């Protein structure tokens, strides 16, 4: 069964964007970029909320810039090649290699999980809330950045219930970013 992975760049205080949506605290050096590129190759589908899709659409055109470094162009090509599903009730249309889904997220994801293929990557805090409430997330990845941002968009929404996790991996990058990967500990769930 294909997994849904919710993976984000996050500050030590848990924000995925600053108070004005700023991302200028991201440390995306070549080491991390190449690592992320390798992770993305194992992804078969991107699952986005509207806002995250709009942010990520940047990658639709970046490889046309000849001054971009090789690892950046590589990421753009990987991103473009992966089919996307955008969950939104307000968007009217989406770009290349993307499909718009308005409703029935649980049903849609259950169907996708049954299909053969690579894992699915979920992006965006709003959509993650829906997925967490529906119990659809199979893996969490936090690229914890060495910075306290103070305010902004939290990676994790307010939840009514506790979710116990099992640590799969903690990996340190030379920039000071630490990747923490977890699975829900379902046997302990109440």
């Amino acid at each position, binding site marked *: 069964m294909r997994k849904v992975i919710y993976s984000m760049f996050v500050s030590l205080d848990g924000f995925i964007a600053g108070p004005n949506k700023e991302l200028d605290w991201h440390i995306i050096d070549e080491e991390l970029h190449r690592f992320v590129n390798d992770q993305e190759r194992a992804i078969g589908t991107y699952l986005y909320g509207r806002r995250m899709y709009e942010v990520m659409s940047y990658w639709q055109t970046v490889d046309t810039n000849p001054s971009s470094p090789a690892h950046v162009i590589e990421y753009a090509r990987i991103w473009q090649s992966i089919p996307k599903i955008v969950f939104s009730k307000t968007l009217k249309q989406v770009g290349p290699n993307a499909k718009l889904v308005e409703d029935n997220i649980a049903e849609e994801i259950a169907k996708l999980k049954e299909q053969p293929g690579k894992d699915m990557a979920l992006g965006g805090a709003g959509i993650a809330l829906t997925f967490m409430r529906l119990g659809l997330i199979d893996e969490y990845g936090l690229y914890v950045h060495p910075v306290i941002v103070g305010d902004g968009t939290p990676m994790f929404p307010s939840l009514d219930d506790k979710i116990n996790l*099992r640590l799969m991996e903690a990996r*340190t990058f030379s920039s000071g970013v*630490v990747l923490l990967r977890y699975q829900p500990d379902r046997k302990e769930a109440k």
Partner: protein
Amino acid sequence: MRNLFAFNMVTLDGFFEGPNHDISWHNVDDEFNQFAIEQTSTVGAILFGRATYEGMASYWPTPAAQSDDPIVANLMNTLPKVVFSRTLQKAEWNNTRLIKDNVAEEILKMKQEPGNDLAVFGSANLLSSLMQMNLVDEHRVLVNPVLIGSGTPLFRSIKQRVNLKLVKARTFKSGNVLLYYQPDKK
């Protein structure tokens, strides 16, 4: 000059306590207890805010603490302690000094004194003040493998960006990850 470090347990969603001061999610085992003994053994004095002080002062001197955790209890009860509070009338836990004012001055003075490191455990409000006064030399954040959904964020009162430098990361068998950071002064 001795260093001041802050040690905190947090959930993966960044809370140091749940609603109603809930810390039942603390993920502790023998390996953690061993770490706590080693860490506390390097401490010269512990600094508290009022709320954390009251919680700890009502636990460590009890027979329950003595039977569950005798080594740490003994360290906590005998180490010099300072509680910073304008509202507390007296501090009766053994070897505790109550300081009402001039926090920065008092801490700078303590830093100049010889001895082991100064430690802040919990005490999120005090920690925020100390960070704003650039008095914290190291943050040790123990990330527990759990999402609790709501509570009090550890860095709640920090509104300005603080750049840090990762010193090291340690993984515990229980799934806890301990992250060591220093302020990035460049």
